[in-house]
C-alpha cells in the first residue's frame, strides 16, 4: 500500500532582479528544490503588499516566502528596505493573531545564489511540512 506523503503548497514571491534569477541558476545547476514551490515573479519585493500574502493563504497556500535582493542591492535602490519594515510588522501581527510564525518568511537571495535559493526552499518546505496544512488562514470563499 502506498501512503501519500503530505506535501505543503508553497508560494514564493521572487524579485525579478535577484531571486527569480537565483531560481533560474538553481535550475541550470540541476539543484533540487520541491516542485510544490510555486514561484510568482514580481518586479521588486516591495511590490508585494500584505494582501498578496494573505490572499495566497486564503486560497490554500501552506507557506508563503518572499525573496528579494540583499539590503543595499535593490535594483530600485530602496524597495527592499520598505519590504523589510512592512513584513516585520505584518509577520508580527500574524503571530499576534496566533498564526504559526513559521508559515511566513523573508529571505534575501541574489541572482548569483542559486545554491542558497535551493537550500532556502528545501528548508522552508521542510518547516512548513512539519506544521501540516494551513487551517487558520484558509478562506473557503476564496478557494476556487
Amino acid at each position, binding site marked *: 500500500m502506498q501512503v501519500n506523503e503530505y506535501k505543503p503548497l508553497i508560494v514564493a514571491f521572487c524579485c525579478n532582479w535577484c531571486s527569480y534569477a537565483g531560481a533560474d541558476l538553481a535550475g541550470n545547476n540541476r539543484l533540487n528544490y520541491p516542485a510544490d514551490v510555486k514561484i510568482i515573479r514580481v518586479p521588486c519585493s516591495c511590490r508585494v503588499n*500584505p*494582501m498578496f500574502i*494573505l*490572499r495566497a*493563504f*486564503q486560497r490554500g497556500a501552506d507557506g508563503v516566502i518572499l525573496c528579494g535582493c540583499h*539590503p*543595499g542591492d535593490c535594483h530600485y535602490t*530602496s524597495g527592499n*528596505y*520598505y519590504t*523589510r*519594515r*512592512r*513584513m*516585520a*510588522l*505584518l*509577520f*508580527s*501581527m*500574524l*503571530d*499576534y*493573531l*496566533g*498564526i*504559526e*510564525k513559521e508559515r*511566513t*518568511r*523573508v529571505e534575501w537571495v541574489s541572482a548569483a545564489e542559486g545554491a542558497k535559493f535551493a537550500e532556502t526552499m528545501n528548508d522552508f518546505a521542510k518547516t512548513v511540512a512539519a506544521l501540516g496544512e494551513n*487551517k*487558520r*488562514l*484558509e*478562506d*473557503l*470563499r*476564496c478557494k476556487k
Partner: protein
Amino acid sequence: MQEIKREVLVNKASELLKNGTVDRVFGWKKGEFDYDITPALFTTAEDIENEFVWGDFCGANFSKYLIKETGKSENKVLVFLKPCDTYSFNQLLTEHRFDREKVYAVGVPCNGMLDTGKIKSSAEGISKVTDNGDKVVIETLFDGEITLDRNELLPDRCLNCKSKKHVAYDELLGEDGAVLDSNRFDEVEKLEKMTPDERFAFWQNELSRCIRCNACRDVCPACTCEKCVFDNPNSGVENKAATNEFEEKMFHIIRAFHVAGRCTDCGECSRVCPQHIPLHLLNRKFIKDIDSFYGEYQAGAEVGSRAPIVNYTTEDIEPGDAVRRNENA
C-alpha cells in the same frame, strides 16, 4: 460631567456665525435616547440655541467630516475638537486631505466620553442618564434608578487617554491639559504573553462576531481612500460569510495595516463597532511594534511628520527577528 458648559460652546458658535468667521458649525443633536447623540451640521444661531447638545455622549471625532465639508464651500466651517480629535486633525493635514484655511478649530477640554455600550448593557429600558460628576444615574422604565461610578462607564480610549493636550486649534475653550503616561499597551502585552493557541482562540472569539458592517472603516479618520479595497465586488471578501476559521481576519489585518503609522489611536473604530470588538488592540499592536522596532512615533502629534512605515534605515530589524523578539519578550 464635562467641565465646560454647553452655554460656552453655544455662545462661541453663535458669535462666530454672527461675525461671519464661519457659516457652518459641526456639533451634536439629540437622538432617540440620551445616549444616542448624533453629529449634525448647523447653519443658524437659532438652531444652535435650540438644538445643540454637549455632554458625555458627544464622542464623535469630526476631523474626517472636514474632508467633504471643506470641499463644499469657500467659507470656513467651525469644528469643536477634543484633545484626541486634534491628533486626527493633524494627521489629515499631513496627508493633505483638507484645506486648513477653510476650518476654524475650537479646542474643548474633555473629561472622557461615556461608552454607549456599557450604558446599554448596565440596565434595561433606560429612560434617562444623568451625570453627577463621579456618579452616573441611570433611570429606567421598570426597575427604578441605578447609580454607577462614572469611571466604570468610560470606554477604553478614555480610561487609557494618551493626551489631554490639544495639538491643533485656532482657539481654546477652558484649560489645556498635558500628554499623559497612559497604560494603553497593557492589554496588548497581556495578549503577547499568551500562547499562540490562546491568542488564536481569543481573536477567533472576537472577530467571528464581526458582521462586516464596515462602520470601523467608515468612521476612521485614517481610512479616507476614495476607493477602498473592501468595496471591490470581485475580492470575494466584501461581505460577511461565516465559512471557516479565517472569517474576517483578512479584513481586520488589512484594515489595521492600512492605517499603521497613520492611526492616531483616537479610538473611534472601537467606539462605533456594534459588536464591541476591541479593535484598538489591533491598532495598538502596530503602534507598539512601530515604537519598539523603529523608535517612538505618535501619528498626528505634529503636521508633516513622516510615518515609520514609509521610511527606513539600513539597519532595520529583519522580519524573522521581529517575530522572534515577541517570543522572548
